[in-house]
């Protein structure tokens, strides 16, 4: 508690507060704009880590992460186009509410629900993360290796439409992570001295998220403009409050644990929250599909709580489970910070300032989102060419500023083309970026484990935690296959199919 209060006093210093404000403003803006997300924004801002203090940069990034969740819901509700993947479910009921003239209430329950869930989620994060860190710190290299493997398998196979595509993307990421001579041998360097130090993560992240997305948008530049629903200042009456508070809390209960699991992300908990709210709606059951406020309140709370949840494995174990968390991890590494259990002991001031600033960011978000929602919606009128020209400019600047080498800009173009091709062929980018970041650390743990055991491979399953994790991995990989083999029982549907079914159901 003392540590948190010290952190709060640090977070409220003018400099850190300024970065928090910049972060939440940027985060909301990119959340509102479809196609531009917090992961791209943090990737574009990675070069600022060269001259900004670690705590300020992390505060800004956390603000962007939280802000993206808020902004995405505005677009979902007013435009029926989710700004972020986590807001897909919100669009189901949110846009229906808006069409019935209840846009103000939908925005209000989304913003206040996000605040409630974000605050509870952050409290849970503060309570859980240090304990997890204490627990993890005693683990040896074999367990770490297993945990990282679990994170890789989970982000690859749980989310996304196709396991094959997921693992292809992961393989690409691990290959990019192999480049360099850090192990003493030259791997994939093509005898090019510029590749000897490996490929900088900034270049890869910026290329995949910013350049790839910009090329993709340029290829689909002209789309029929969408109709936006005009809205005033968000507000709710007593009845809306009564119908919203329970979904907020239930959404939080779904979001946080799912975010904290290595198979994080907001898609699954928002979906589950929606289903639950529909089942529990009682007298309002008939309103679902026509704009039920519960269907906005629950999923919105779930996606914010899951954002807080993903910070648990990120800070306590050093495992990123979402694209944004992966890029934040890259930022921490560029400061030479070792995310994971040691972080709480080595850098208590930094960690607690960051945690305290999450409360600050959450409050700021409520303040700027509730009255300013109509203003944020105006961002949707910016022609894409201006927006993406700016993004490409910053992308090239960022890649060049890494080493001041033209070679990095060349790599940027190369990986940008890869990012475009991945979008074209439906390969998810999350496994790639997690692979690039975790790959080298995975290898490090493996080397360490094998050195201690003098090359005895059985050391890898010599720790109980490692064994449990391997069992979980096996269940994750084989579970769906086994279920499909049981006659008369369909394997669990993919999340995307479920969401599509749900959308069709709601539309009809």
């Amino acid at each position: 508690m003392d540590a948190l209060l010290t952190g709060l006093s640090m977070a409220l210093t003018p400099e850190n507060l300024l970065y928090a404000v910049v972060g939440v403003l940027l985060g909301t803006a990119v959340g509102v704009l479809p196609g531009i997300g917090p992961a791209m924004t943090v990737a574009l801002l990675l070069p600022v880590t060269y001259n900004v203090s670690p705590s300020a940069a992390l505060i800004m990034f956390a603000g962007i992460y939280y802000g993206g969740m808020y902004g995405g819901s505005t677009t979902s509700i007013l435009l029926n186009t989710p700004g972020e993947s986590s807001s897909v479910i919100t669009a189901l009921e949110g846009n229906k509410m808006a069409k019935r003239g209840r846009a103000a209430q939908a925005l209000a329950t989304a913003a206040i629900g996000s605040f409630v869930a974000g605050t509870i989620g952050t409290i849970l994060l503060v309570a859980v993360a240090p304990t997890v860190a204490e627990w993890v710190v005693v683990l040896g290299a074999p367990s770490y290796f297993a945990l990282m493997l679990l994170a890789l398998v989970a982000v690859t196979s749980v989310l996304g439409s196709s396991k094959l595509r997921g693992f292809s993307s992961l393989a690409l990421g691990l290959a990019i992570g192999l480049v360099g001579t850090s192990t003493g041998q030259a791997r994939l360097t093509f005898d090019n001295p510029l590749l000897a130090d490996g490929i900088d993560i900034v270049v890869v992240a910026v290329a995949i998220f910013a350049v790839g997305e910009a090329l993709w948008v340029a290829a689909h530049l002209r789309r029929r403009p969408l109709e936006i629903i005009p809205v005033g200042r968000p507000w709710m009456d007593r009845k809306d409050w009564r119908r919203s508070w329970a979904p907020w809390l239930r959404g939080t209960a779904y979001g946080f644990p799912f975010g904290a699991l290595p198979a994080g992300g907001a898609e699954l908990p928002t979906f589950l929250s929606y289903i639950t709210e529909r089942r529990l709606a009682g007298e309002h059951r008939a309103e679902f599909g026509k704009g039920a406020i519960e269907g906005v309140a629950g999923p919105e709370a779930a996606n914010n709580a899951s954002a807080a949840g993903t910070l648990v494995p990120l800070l306590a174990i050093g495992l990123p489970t979402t694209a944004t968390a992966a890029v934040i991890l890259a930022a921490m590494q560029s400061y030479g910070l070792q995310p994971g259990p040691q972080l709480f002991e080595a850098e208590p001031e930094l960690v607690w300032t960051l945690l305290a600033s999450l409360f600050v960011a959450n409050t700021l978000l409520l303040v700027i989102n509730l009255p300013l929602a109509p203003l944020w919606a105006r961002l949707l009128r910016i022609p894409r060419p201006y927006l993406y020209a700016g993004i490409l400019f910053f992308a090239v600047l960022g890649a060049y500023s890494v080493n001041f080498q033209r070679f990095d800009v060349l790599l940027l173009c190369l990986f940008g083309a890869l990012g475009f091709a991945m979008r074209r062929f439906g390969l998810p980018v999350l496994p790639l970026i997690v692979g690039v970041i975790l790959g080298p650390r995975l290898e490090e743990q493996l080397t360490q484990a094998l050195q201690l055991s003098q090359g005895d491979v059985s050391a890898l399953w010599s720790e109980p935690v490692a064994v449990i994790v391997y069992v979980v991995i096996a269940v994750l990989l084989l579970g769906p296959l086994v279920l499909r083999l049981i006659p008369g029982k369909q394997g669990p549907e993919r999340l995307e199919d479920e969401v599509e079914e749900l959308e069709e159901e709601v539309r009809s």
Partner: protein
Amino acid sequence: MTVVVGWTPDARGQAALLRAVHEAQVHDEPLLVVNASSGTAPVDDRFAGAAELAAIRALLDSHGVDAEVRQPVVRDVTDALLDITEEVDASMLVIGIRHRSAVGKLLMGSTAQRILLDARCPVLAVKA
């Protein structure tokens, strides 16, 4: 021969549309309403939505004009309008104009000026 009108769901477009309806009735010609967008922004206020379309449909029907509404998404709105006037061999093109500041014209160019100079048919410019 057809009367073509460049229409946007605002005061300017409304003035142009009303005048175009009048011209179509006087000359007993069909009316073609063009509402184009470059489609580069997710939301374009000058691209009519369902409600606005329904409103002008009602207006056109109440005047008993034989009217068609087109909403093309094109690279250049001005070029599209000029192309359509040639395609339907328009007898007249009606547009709405407004005052623009010198800076605004410098930055964005003047759509009206380009239409006046490049159109192959007579252009009727209506002030909102």
